[in-house]
Structure formats: structure tokens, C-alpha cells
């Protein structure tokens, strides 16, 4: 096979695998008593919820309800997470004081907090925001902290030789050098936050994509569940694509491919 023939296969193979996926889906969804809706039924249900409201809201309103929770929580997670991460990474005293507490709380999956947070904060907007905050705060702290600890010692030496005092060393050299690590943490955090909001909404909510899935379960509407799952995946993909683009803009020295 010559190279252009090989290349051709790289275009054919993905089409083939996606084709097989849909073929399997269609095959499994045949029969009257199956719990698997056909791709066509899923698409129809998707278009239907785009126009016809469920619980007084169309799909886009539900997506926005979830996104809003994520964005609010995310704002606080970034502010506090970067602050704590810098503290843990930069100051030995801070690290030995707060580090152990953080290490105890860190391995608890954010979803395990849901029952407690609902008891504490009720069933309004606050508990969802708190859950998402817990889920996105931890990766931001961890990435910021390790970014600061793993800074190239050569850059620190260069800063010292150029006359930086300790404050300048942090703000002029260490923090800018850590921005890529912080952004990587933010990307992980966004995925984690999006997962948490769906989980929180599945337990108690009147709106949001997680609520829609549970509504589908309660009414045996499998097409609705599948349509929502795909929507959740697509939204997550969009969010991380936006962030990757943003990284290119914010740190061209690290992420941008242009030479």
C-alpha cells in the first residue's frame, strides 16, 4: 500500500466505526418491548424538547439552568482555588498548616457531599452551586499548587539574579509561569463541575439537564434520557473546546501552535 492509500483508510475507518455503532444501535432497538429507542426516535424526542417545554422549560432553558449553576460555582472555585493553591505551593508554613486538612477532604468524591449539602442548604439553587464548587475547587487547587511547586528553578534563579524580591518573585515570575498549570486545572475542573451539576440535579431539582434525565426515568421515556445524555456530552465538549481556545489566547507561549 502506498502512503496515499494508507491515508485514505484513516478517513474510512472512523466512518466505518460510527456506521457500526449506529447499526448496532438500530439492531438492538428493534422489537416492540425493547427499552432502547431507535436513533430516529431519539432525534425526534430531541427536536421535540427543543420546542415543547417540560416542566415549563424548553431544552435550552434547562441547559442554561445547569450552566448558570456551573458558572457561578466556577467563579468562586477559581478565585478561592487559585488563592489556596498559591498559598499551599508558595508558603511552607501555609502548606504545613492547611495542607493536611486539604489532604483529608480531597479524596472524598464531590458527589458524596450531596446528601449533607442538601440537608444544610435545602433544595434551592444553593446546594447545586455548592456541590459544583466542591467538585471544581479541588482540581484547581491541586493544579495551581503543583504548578507553583514545579516551577523551573532556573527561572527562579534568573529572577533572583535580576533582583526580584520575594513578592516580585511570586507576582512577576512564579505566577505567570504557573498560568498554564492553572488553566489545565480549570479545564479538569470544568468537566468535574459539569458532572457534579448533573448528579446534583438528578437528586433534587425542578430544572436542568440532570432533572430532565430523571424525568425520563420516571416516565419510562428512554428517548428523552438518551437525548439528554447526548446533550450533556455535547455541552461538555463545547465547554472544553472554548477553554482550549481561551488557553491559546491567554498563554500563546505555551499552547498556541503558531510559530
Amino acid at each position, binding site marked *: 500500500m502506498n502512503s496515499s492509500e494508507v491515508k485514505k483508510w484513516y478517513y474510512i475507518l472512523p466512518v466505518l466505526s460510527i456506521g457500526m455503532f449506529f447499526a448496532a444501535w438500530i439492531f438492538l432497538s428493534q422489537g416492540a418491548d425493547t427499552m432502547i429507542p431507535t436513533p430516529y426516535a431519539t432525534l425526534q424526542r430531541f427536536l421535540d424538547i427543543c420546542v415543547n417545554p417540560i416542566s415549563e422549560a424548553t431544552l435550552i432553558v434547562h441547559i442554561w439552568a445547569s450552566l448558570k449553576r456551573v458558572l457561578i460555582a466556577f467563579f468562586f472555585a477559581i478565585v478561592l482555588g487559585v488563592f489556596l493553591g498559591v498559598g499551599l505551593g508558595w508558603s511552607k508554613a501555609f502548606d504545613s498548616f492547611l495542607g493536611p486538612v486539604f489532604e483529608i477532604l480531597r479524596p472524598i468524591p464531590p458527589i458524596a457531599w450531596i446528601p449533607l449539602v442538601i440537608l444544610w442548604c435545602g433544595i434551592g439553587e444553593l446546594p447545586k452551586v455548592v456541590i459544583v464548587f466542591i467538585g471544581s475547587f479541588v482540581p484547581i487547587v491541586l493544579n495551581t499548587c503543583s504548578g507553583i511547586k514545579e516551577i523551573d528553578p532556573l527561572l527562579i534563579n534568573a529572577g*533572583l*539574579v*535580576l*533582583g526580584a524580591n520575594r513578592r516580585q518573585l511570586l507576582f*512577576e515570575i512564579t505566577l505567570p509561569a504557573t498560568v498554564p498549570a492553572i488553566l489545565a486545572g480549570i479545564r479538569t475542573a470544568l468537566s468535574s463541575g459539569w458532572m457534579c451539576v448533573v448528579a446534583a440535579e438528578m437528586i433534587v431539582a425542578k430544572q436542568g439537564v440532570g432533572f430532565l434525565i430523571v424525568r425520563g426515568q420516571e416516565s419510562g421515556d428512554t428517548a428523552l434520557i438518551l437525548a439528554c445524555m447526548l446533550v450533556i456530552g455535547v455541552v461538555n465538549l463545547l465547554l472544553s473546546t472554548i477553554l482550549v481556545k481561551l488557553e491559546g489566547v491567554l498563554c500563546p507561549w505555551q499552547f498556541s501552535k503558531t*510559530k
Partner: protein
Amino acid sequence: MAVLKNKISLKNVSKTYYLKDRTVEVLKDITLDVKENEFLVLLGPGQCGKTVLLNIIADLEKATSGEIIFADGRPKMGDLGMVFQKYALFPWKTVMGNVEMNQKLKGVDKATRQAKAQEYINLVGLQGFEKAIPKQLSGGMKQRVGIARAYASESDIMLMDEPFGALDAQTRYSMEDEIIKIWEKNKRTIVFVTNNVEEALYLGDRIMLLASRPSYVKKEYIVDLPRPRSYTDKAFLEMRNEIVANTDLDI
């Protein structure tokens, strides 16, 4: 050669690292003088502690014993220029941002420090690249930025830690010419570290040959060859062979 004032004097400088299971003696009783405005080369095999010695002079590390005397008093941090082997440029800063860094940290206002930085950017031949970031530059250009940044600290002492070690051979030759040109235009006291005998001979007024682990001054060579020097000159080659024969093998 005229009698020159001693700019830096190292007296019995030793450095030992105390590790968990052993001690490593890196520098042993290094005594040498650096004269004002001379181009002094510290030549030694790889891993012989040259960088440690330079870091001690720069006050980035402390000597275990011995003393370092600066004729004009120890310069404060920021008043001493240093060029690093791996450039150590700030990747998020432009060429201008890197070169003006020293003055920025000292609180000099923007217009003044950028005018100053521009002079040094011109000195190393990078005019037109002020807004480029290091990622967009070749290795040779990156090190020009490193040299300009060190010069911009306006220090009369420049420490250079194998500055051309990461460059390919062709770029290395042209940078060697470049550094001599820059130095002749703008004389400073240069302490230049290298493991390359030809480079040492091509650049230095004087060469201090260091032994390997623990490192001590094995021999001093005064290079009394006119500049620009030639790698194929007879006197150059004779001296080269002599130094090579006297150099510890880098194991």
C-alpha cells in the same frame, strides 16, 4: 599586559554537599582573581562544579568555606549580570519584556527602562524582534536575548554559564564572534564558563583550567593571541594541545 585591578578575588572557596548517605566535595580551595574588564574563562570537564562556582559568585548558593571579595563591595542582587546555559528566558514575556525585567524590578519607569532595554537589544542585533516571544526565536537569538538581559542590569560584572552549550556548532561559532564584538564595544568583567577548549581559547584573555571532582584550579593559561583569533592558527593549536593534554577526562 598592563597591570589590572582585581575585580573579584576568590580565596579558598570550597563547597561540599552533605547528602543523606554521603558527602560530595564539589569545589576545593578555589583561589583566583578576576581582573577588571578582562574576559576570564573557567574551563573544566562536565559536572566539575563550574556552575556551582558561578552560582556562589552570584550569591545563588553559599560556599561551605572560603571568601569572595569584590573590589567595589558585593553587588546587590540585581546588580550582577548572568547568562544561563538554557537561556532561562521568561517565556511569557516578549524580547523587550525580558530585557527590561531588571530595571522593571528595580522600579524604573517604563519609558526610561524601555529606552535602555532598546539600546541593549540593538547591541545584540535583535532590533525588529522586540515584540517576539522566546518561542518564536532560534536558539542563537534566544541567547542574544539572554545576553542583552544580563547587560541591561548595567552591572560591570557578567557571569556566563556555558551560554553557548545548547547551540549547534555553526551558531556557536557565530555567537562566539558576537560575544567578543559585544564585549569590545561595551567592556565588562566577564567570567565565562565552558567545557570546550577551543571556545575557551577563542574567547579568553585568561583561562583557568579546573580539575574534576573535587574541582580546584589546575593551571592558569594566559592567552596572548591577537583577536580575532583563528581556530587553525599554529599558536592556537599548540596551546590547545597543551590544555587538552592537561585536562581531566570527563567520566
